[in-house]
């Protein structure tokens, strides 16, 4: 029975993984393999692939190196929860907010040329993922064993030896983080678009979003898919990571001013400095109110789209991850989840557009499908690796309980499952609020959200409008998020 169940799950995953390619092939008016081959071999695609890969590699390298440094300090300092909250708040900023903030700063401080260069793009991509990386590494990187710590202390190593030792302990984990962030950076759309640069994601959008060219879109997909498959083994080391281990969070060092400054740098660069320059460039109050009035519909659309999509997708992810939880050692499930993460949201958007156009599905359902499937992989990952794990004692208690299954479950539902579900919903809301690439091709007439409005307005020399919309996105993101946090608080009390 267990085998049948596992096989079914794997089949579901395989279907999800191959869905983009299958859908494109099935719905395409005509597929010409020669044309696909040509597009894979085209110089333009290869050059774009190489350029994007090098930017993604640099950004990921910097993100992981800095993320490891930050996470080791977070874990070693007292009241690390403060840093977790602060870094968590950085999630609220979107790539548009961060980029617009720095564009405004560059205008004031006269480094626009540098910001619009490849170096600028690498710096922004590194900054954007840094808080998330620090949290993820803090929660999943295994600690040294006591023996290792003692050996290290006895050796009295200098900083280089220390780094080398840490490297030998962590190298495979670091490689898996690097791979994960490499793919997130590789499929970045918003930042290159704002900085007027081209990359692989924008190329794929142009191939399908502009021309509905199925052959070229398949060429792009297959070209990147083979690289994604090659990097898969590195992702597997994430599985060795521990879940949140209280021992890891025991403070070992004092919080010095230097350490505080270092830990405070990411929130400063990701949230505070961009916010300062966003506020600096705002128009007067009356104009802000006028913009608010003009974009009320977009704000409403943002609120209900992100909340409904988050509620439904999180439920699905939570159920799935609870199922995996009972099969912790199933490598195939892990492989499938890892591969899902490398599926770009732009491709999910294209798949949804292609399928919905073919089936005649339009309206809000199409938008929900697009955003839901775009945030699904990261939500499932978060749920499986950070939230879903029940302790063995809880499971034992449940099995031994003489009460009816539902009666036995009810306190668990109220105290454990629901709060976790709400945390997952909050992550879902944050991801849905920022999701642009999948909904760009799928939003219904009159269904533009704030993030889509920013995307359509950002190239029209209307800095004040875009700046105000970025601020709205941040404020209304927090307002939409607060019911989830409030409910979490009420249930946990």
């Amino acid at each position, binding site marked *: 029975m267990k085998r049948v169940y596992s096989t079914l799950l794997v089949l579901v995953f395989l279907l999800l993984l191959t869905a983009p390619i299958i859908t494109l092939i099935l719905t395409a008016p005509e597929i010409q393999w020669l044309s696909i081959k040509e597009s894979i071999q085209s110089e333009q695609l290869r050059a774009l692939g190489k350029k994007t890969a090098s930017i993604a590699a640099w950004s990921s390298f910097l993100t992981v190196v800095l993320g490891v440094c930050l996470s080791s300090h977070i874990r070693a300092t007292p009241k690390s929860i403060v840093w977790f909250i602060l870094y968590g708040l950085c999630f609220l900023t979107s790539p548009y907010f961060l980029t617009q903030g720095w564009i405004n700063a560059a205008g004031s401080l006269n480094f*626009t040329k540098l910001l619009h260069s490849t170096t600028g793009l690498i710096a922004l991509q590194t900054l954007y993922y840094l808080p998330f990386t620090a949290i993820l590494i803090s929660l999943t990187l295994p600690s040294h064993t006591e023996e290792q710590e003692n050996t290290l202390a006895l050796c009295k190593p200098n900083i280089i030896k220390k780094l080398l030792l840490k490297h030998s302990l962590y190298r495979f984990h670091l490689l898996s983080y690097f791979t994960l962030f490499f793919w997130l950076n590789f499929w970045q759309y918003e930042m290159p678009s704002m900085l007027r640069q081209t990359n692989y994601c924008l190329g794929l959008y142009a191939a399908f*979003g502009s021309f509905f060219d199925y052959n070229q879109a398949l060429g792009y997909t297959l070209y990147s898919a083979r690289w994604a498959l090659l990097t898969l083994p590195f992702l597997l080391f994430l599985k060795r990571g521990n879940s949140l281990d209280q021992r890891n969070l025991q403070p070992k060092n004092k919080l010095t001013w230097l350490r505080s400054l270092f830990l405070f740098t990411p929130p400063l660069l990701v949230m505070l400095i961009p916010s300062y320059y966003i506020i600096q460039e705002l128009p007067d109050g009356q104009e802000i109110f006028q913009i608010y009035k003009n974009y009320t519909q977009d704000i409403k659309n943002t609120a209900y789209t992100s909340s409904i999509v988050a509620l439904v997708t999180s439920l699905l992810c939570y159920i799935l991850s609870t199922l995996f939880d009972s099969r912790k050692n199933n490598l195939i499930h892990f492989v499938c989840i890892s591969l899902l993460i490398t599926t770009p949201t732009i491709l999910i958007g294209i798949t949804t557009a292609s399928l919905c156009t073919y089936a005649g599905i339009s309206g809000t359902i199409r938008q929900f499908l697009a955003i839901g499937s775009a945030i699904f992989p990261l939500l499932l990952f978060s749920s499986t690796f950070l939230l879903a794990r029940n302790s063995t004692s809880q499971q034992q208690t449940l099995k031994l309980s003489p009460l009816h299954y539902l009666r036995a479950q009810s306190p668990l539902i109220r105290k454990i499952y629901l709060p976790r579900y709400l945390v997952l919903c909050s992550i879902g809301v944050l991801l849905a609020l920022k999701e642009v690439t999948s909904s760009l091709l799928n939003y219904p007439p009159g269904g533009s959200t704030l993030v889509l409005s920013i995307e*359509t307005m950002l*190239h029209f020399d209307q800095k004040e409008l875009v700046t105000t919309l970025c601020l709205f996105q941040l404020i209304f993101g927090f307002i939409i998020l607060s019911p989830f946090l409030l409910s979490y608080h009420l249930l946990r009390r």
Partner: protein
Amino acid sequence: MISLRLYHTLKFSISLLPFLVLLSCSEQTDTKKVVVLYTSLDRPHSEPVIRQFEEQTGITVQTVYDTEAAKTVGLTNRLIAEKRNPTADVFWNSEVIRTIRLQEKNILEPYQSAEAKSIPSHMKDPDHHWTGFAARCRCFFFHKDLPSPPRELNDMLDPRWKGKFAIANPLFGTTNTHLGVQWQKWGAEKTRAFYKKLKQNGAIIVPGNAMARDMVLSGEIDFCLTDTDDAWSSILQDKPFKVSYPDQDKQSEGTLFIPNTVALIRNGPNPDTARELIDYLLSTEVESQLAHSQSSQIPLRKEVDTPRHVSEMKTLKIISADFPRASQTLDDAGQFIQTNFLEP
């Protein structure tokens, strides 16, 4: 015990309240009259017109805008893809050639608007599948202190500008229209040679006209070939930049005028409100509004009141373009651009 359970139930119910408030934001189904519009005109310029129509008629316009990178081509291809199940009622295109392509694919329904009578006949389809209004023209955009700025298209081939100018991707938007007209007027050989030389002279290709304009504004390049709406929207904000209109000498052929076009979609869900919207867009009131807006569009009717800088544009020497014939060249031209101009 009971009170404890009641307490938990109440607490649980209260925790659900915020979601009810949140979900109350969701879409209201109402009996309001609606019309679905796909428009490729830049949102900052089209949105005020749409809002005014909503205020005057009480009809809600549900709009899909195009992104800068997919300009026009994205929406026309979406309309082609949706041919079996059309979602849109009206297509307001910022240029003309892609509208003609839709006509060729039998996606447009003929509609003769009473408002279109005074529009010149070469700016509308004789079978009433589409009607042109409010045009833009191609221009060079540069800093006002730039010494001897470009005056002709061939100036872009001058080595002194090597790598210092930008044009939008010729597969999209008005640059695509320009390419089609060049191919039709100059012939394939001359156009191919022109674009090859352009590439050799280091033309920077960006996804859209507005992005080319932004590069000039930020000082990254000396000038760009763009549309008047992108150029004038910056000049009217008191920025120290200027425009020049290409090929205005006696021997030259003039610059290209590209009208907006509006068309009714065949089998669209709201044909009645769609006709009302088309009538409104073709009115002199909208042409005047677009002329006075930052996009500075050029009215096709003489009687429309315009600001001074737009009146000057009305006197320009323009290419006599045959848009339907230019439309037929786009496949060959596009193929050439893709393989010989865009490939590194």
